[in-house]
């Protein structure tokens, strides 16, 4: 708290000059007088000394004045500072007093406030405790009531459920019995339908061979196709109901026949293109199942592709069996559909629950796959639709088909010594039957050196006779035996009959000798070739005149 310097505090040069100037003037007058009064000889030294003395005097006077003034100023400042310090001490004491009073007041306030809050808290606590107690009592009461109600309800519910369970169990028992009965009845009916269809197909085949009129044949083929489809449906029902599968073939069935058999059972068989050079065959017991599964896959492919698109079937032999792939260019199956189809054909779905009326096919394939170890898988086809791969495992394949596709009667096979089955197919086809009317004798003798007795169509009896007699077929025969002659007569008659049927039909009635003597009317008692295969070699559309010769 230093007081600001006032203008009079510091001695100004002006005031100093006011002291110095008179001093200097007086000194100068004294020096001048002394010099003038002095003899001239000492004037110069006296002048110099006096001047110097005068200057020193002036300086001393100035310094003295300045010192006195400065001392006075300093004393005045000291006094001001002392006064400031006293003032400050007084101020501080006042502030301390004030703060003490404030503190006391605040403490008092706080104490009061605290007491008030404590009281309030106590009241609130008491209120809450009371409320809590009340609530608790209420809840306990409510809980007890609810528990009682619930226990009651549970008892009722238990009774009801027990009753319901009993009822459901009875219902389930009845449903199971009914299901078993229905399945068994369905299986039975399917079996009968299969038998009917099979019989009808055989009948139709026989009729197709008997009627040479193209119109009739077209109609018969149409009926044949319809019947085959009906038969497939019956087969499907039989498979799903666990009945025995429809037919059992007595011999292995070649791949070509398998594919044709499958094609023949679907509606759109004309759109199926088969690319197969495989000559493997499927064992007789499994052939029907494989055919059926394949037919279902083909039917799916044909149904789910545009009506004009072709379905291509490829057969490929692999070490583990034969892969038949069916490729269509129809709808591409989505992820979910593919998975569902895959699941259906894997045979995992054991029950009949997932069946819908129109989609039996894949379930049938699943059942057959499990039964015969087929592996079916789906994938998108390069043709734009869906491709199905079916692997026929090696254990139901039997290598090249032992019989050429044009079927020969299976029974009454003469022994074929030393003929490996692998070459049977080729040999059978390469060596066509001798044909009556075209150098038969020559061809027979030419065939003889081969040394292998072969039963030919139309020569069953001859072959059987030869086998019985133990005669070597290699023997040169100058004159054909009587049996051969008889057979040849039979063949000739069938040939004649065929010629007459188309060429000169009206001539028939003019032949009383033949008709009366030998042939029964065509429609009445057509011979059943399977039964008479041994002694009636003629083609089934021919009259069995050969039999009647003595």
């Amino acid at each position: 708290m230093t007081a600001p310097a006032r203008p009079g505090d510091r001695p100004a040069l002006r005031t100093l000059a006011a002291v110095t100037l008179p001093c200097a003037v007086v000194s100068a007058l004294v020096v001048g007088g002394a010099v003038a009064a002095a003899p001239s000889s000492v004037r110069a030294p006296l002048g110099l000394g006096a001047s110097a003395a005068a200057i020193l005097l002036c300086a001393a006077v100035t310094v003295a004045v300045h010192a006195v003034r400065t001392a006075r100023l300093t004393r005045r400042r000291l006094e001001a500072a002392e006064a400031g310090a006293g003032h400050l001490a007084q101020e501080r004491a006042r502030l301390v007093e004030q703060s003490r009073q404030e503190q006391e007041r605040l403490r008092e306030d706080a104490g009061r406030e605290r007491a008030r809050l404590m009281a309030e808290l106590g009241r609130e606590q008491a209120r809450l405790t009371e409320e809590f107690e009340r609530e608790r009592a209420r809840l306990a009461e409510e809980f007890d009531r609810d528990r009682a109600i619930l226990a009651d309800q549970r008892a009722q519910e238990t009774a009801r459920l027990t009753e319901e369970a009993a009822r459901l169990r009875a219902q389930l028992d009845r449903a199971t019995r009914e299901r078993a009965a229905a399945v068994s009845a369905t299986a039975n009916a399917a079996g009968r339908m299969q038998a009917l269809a099979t019989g009808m197909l055989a009948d139709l085949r026989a009729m197709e061979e008997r009627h040479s009129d193209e119109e009739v044949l077209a109609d018969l083929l149409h009926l044949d196709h319809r019947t085959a489809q009906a038969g497939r449906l019956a087969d499907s029902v039989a498979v799903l109901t666990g009945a025995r599968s429809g037919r059992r073939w007595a011999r292995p069935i070649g791949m070509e026949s398998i594919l044709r058999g499958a094609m023949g059972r679907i509606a759109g068989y004309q759109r199926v293109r088969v690319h197969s050079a495989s000559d493997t065959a499927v064992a007789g017991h499994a052939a029907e199942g494989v055919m059926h599964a394949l037919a279902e896959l083909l039917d799916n492919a044909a149904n789910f592709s545009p009506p004009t698109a072709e379905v291509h079937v490829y057969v490929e032999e692999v070490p583990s069996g034969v892969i038949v792939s069916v490729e269509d260019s129809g709808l591409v199956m989505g992820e979910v559909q593919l998975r569902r189809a895959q699941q259906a054909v894997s045979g995992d779905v054991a029950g009949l629950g997932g069946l819908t009326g129109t989609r039996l096919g894949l379930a049938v394939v699943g059942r057959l796959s499990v039964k015969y170890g087929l592996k079916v898988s789906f994938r998108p086809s390069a043709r734009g639709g869906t491709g199905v791969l079916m692997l026929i495992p090696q254990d139901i394949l039997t290598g090249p088909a032992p019989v050429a596709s044009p079927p020969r009667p299976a029974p009454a096979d003469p022994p074929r010594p030393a003929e490996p089955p692998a070459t049977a197919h080729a040999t059978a086809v390469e060596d066509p039957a001798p044909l009556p009317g075209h150098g038969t004798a020559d061809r027979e003798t030419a065939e003889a050196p081969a040394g292998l007795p072969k039963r030919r169509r139309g020569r069953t009896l001859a072959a059987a006779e030869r086998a019985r007699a133990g005669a070597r077929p290699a023997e040169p025969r100058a004159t054909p035996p009587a049996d051969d002659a008889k057979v040849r007569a039979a063949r000739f008659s069938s040939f004649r009959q065929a010629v007459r049927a188309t060429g000169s039909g009206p001539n028939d009635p003019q032949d009383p000798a033949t008709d009366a003597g030998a042939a029964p009317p065509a429609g009445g008692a057509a011979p059943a070739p399977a039964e008479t295969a041994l002694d009636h070699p003629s083609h089934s559309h021919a009259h069995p005149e050969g039999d009647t010769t003595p």
Partner: protein
Amino acid sequence: MSRPGRDDAPDRLYTLTGGRSRSGPDSPFDLVTLVVAECEPTPGMQSEHVAILRMTQAPTAVVEIAAELRLPVSITRILLSDLHAAGRVSARHPRKAAVPDPDILEQVLVGLRNL
């Protein structure tokens, strides 16, 4: 008429011909037409075609082919027409004079029966 095992091949006739039952109006084949193979069978052919080509390396009549294949003549003619259209077989018609009189055939038949 039907009994199990009679129909001992699964092939239906319509699958052999792709559903056709007529061989066309200009088919050169009648029952006695002689058929001659013009080439060897190739792999991948229908087995009936293979059998026909093997059989007809020597001239063979249509009706005999049908008998050999155990197929109805109409079906055989369709198969032959296919082969003919592809140039794999040719048809030769027997000379008219070679067809004997039905009476003679009758007599031959009686004679054969009496053997």
